[in-house]
């Protein structure tokens, strides 16, 4: 076994494979399929200050080698998370990370502060890039100033490892990455979904209730890989790469492009055991090429 350990802020991951927010529930949904403790980290559902019903159905459309979703951050709010969900997941033996979303800076701050109090949640991922809710999310992630402002505010109340999740729907993602790094982010994760749309030609209607939604899956990999490569040259903090990772080779590509860890999202829907296969596959790759540690391949390209 090669050394698969990686560090993200003050977190040590037993391997670079995490699950992407919104695609893995709270982890428990996959407990029948895999040993959750083998994962590097689990990033749970997007959590907001208050309960959110999310967008109306339909929320999903299949696209060539991918899918659009318009879930819209449905969740029962941070208090419910703390009372009801945290007790259920806190003993899963991996890094449990909460993905935090909000509509205002105060929302982000309040939610992050509450999560900061949870002993078994060592990190948060600040979602400033959700394209599926009007008043917030993505808007923060599309300008350096607003992205920087959210991070600055949250940094003041959140002492744990602070990961900031970037939006790909921007002209220059490296610039945004630099802005959030400057305000104290410990790591950046990218990419969130690309804003897309699907139309039902027969019914002459958009397929999603919200018209547009977030594109994910294999189809976005070339774009995600390019962005990770660009950001890797722009910042010093570790990068978590994601977007279209469907197998171990894809994951290795992200590591080569400069990511210290990866997240797997949509691929979990197609193969609920994919995370374990990717971990084993990265190990196999390292062995085959004579590397002793995953560190050796990070950023080789």
């Amino acid at each position, binding site marked *: 076994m090669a050394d698969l350990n990686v560090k993200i802020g003050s977190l040590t991951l037993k391997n670079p494979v995490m699950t992407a927010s919104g695609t893995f529930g709270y982890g428990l949904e996959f407990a029948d399929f895999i040993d959750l403790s083998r994962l590097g980290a689990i990033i749970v559902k997007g959590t907001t200050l208050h309960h959110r019903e999310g967008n109306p159905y339909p929320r999903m459309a299949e696209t060539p080698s991918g899918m659009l979703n318009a*879930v819209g951050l449905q969740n029962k709010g941070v208090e419910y998370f703390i009372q009801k969900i945290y007790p259920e997941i806190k003993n899963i033996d991996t890094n449990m990370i909460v993905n935090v979303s909000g509509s205002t800076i105060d929302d982000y701050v309040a939610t992050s502060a509450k999560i900061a109090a949870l002993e078994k949640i060592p990190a948060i991922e600040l979602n400033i890039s959700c394209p599926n809710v009007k008043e917030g999310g993505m808007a923060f992630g599309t300008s350096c100033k607003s992205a920087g402002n959210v991070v600055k505010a949250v940094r003041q109340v959140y002492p744990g490892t602070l990961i900031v999740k970037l939006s790909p729907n921007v002209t220059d993602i490296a610039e945004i990455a630099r802005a959030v790094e400057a305000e104290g982010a410990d790591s950046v994760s990218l990419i969130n979904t690309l804003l897309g749309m699907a139309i039902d030609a027969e019914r002459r209607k958009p397929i999603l209730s919200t018209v547009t939604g977030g594109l994910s899956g294999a189809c976005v990999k070339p774009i995600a890989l390019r962005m990770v490569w660009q950001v890797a040259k722009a910042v010093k903090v570790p990068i978590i790469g994601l977007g279209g990772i469907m197998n171990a080779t894809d994951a290795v590509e992200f590591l080569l492009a400069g990511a210290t860890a990866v997240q797997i999202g949509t691929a979990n829907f197609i193969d609920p055991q994919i995370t374990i296969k990717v971990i084993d596959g990265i190990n196999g790759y390292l062995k085959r090429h004579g590397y002793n540690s995953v560190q050796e391949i990070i950023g080789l390209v």
Partner: protein
Amino acid sequence: MKKYILDLKVTENLRLHTNYVLLKFTTVDGSSLPPMAPGQFAEVRVDGSPTTFLRRPISINYIDMDNNELWLLIQLVGDGTKKLSTVSPGQTVNMVLPLGNTFTIPEDKASQLILIGGGVGTAPMLYLGYELKQQGYNPIFLLGARSATDILQLKEFKTLGDVFITTEDGTLGEKGYVTQHSVLIENKFDKIYTCGPKPMMMAIAKYAKTHNIDCEVSLENNMACGVGACLCCVEKTTEGHICVCKEGPIFNINKLLWQI
């Protein structure tokens, strides 16, 4: 119920009619199939269809205990189901199963139960009927379809109870819609179970509400994960948005907010 990811081996591929296939599967190694309940479904991976990215949800049609076989009844609608319909005996198909909840069954074995299936929506009704019969109920079946050739698995249904039929063109049974069938109108049922096209289920739900009959429907919302992880498949209910794949697909109509 524990969920599994299994490669199941095709034992038979029967083309029931131009647009329907019945696929039968067993385990590769001869071990027993995992326990599954009526109303549950499988997320089936479709190999070799370039336009099919996600798995396809398909109801458990029947479990043949004697032969350790799982049956799936599939209507060919798009590329995914068309590709799936071409598998041949010996090939394996990857499935995540069993998923979702099951029907609730009244305690009183004398309950008058009617199972109404429309089109390929008859699929889960067969296994439900079998279970009910096993447990000592006397289920009655009402099958509806466009035309006689769309009435599927009639022989199997007949072994489980009385079967009534409506077709829109009158080529078999009574002409019209299931909600107009005399068996429904002339008898007093304690519970209706139904699966089929949404307009049909809504008409039945309305009928059930009006006549104060307990009623459970099986929803077919679009799904991505099938395990409650993505929140794509939600139905708006009295408890807010809930996942059809996990807390469904079977819903009591009282929980739904259908405008009927």
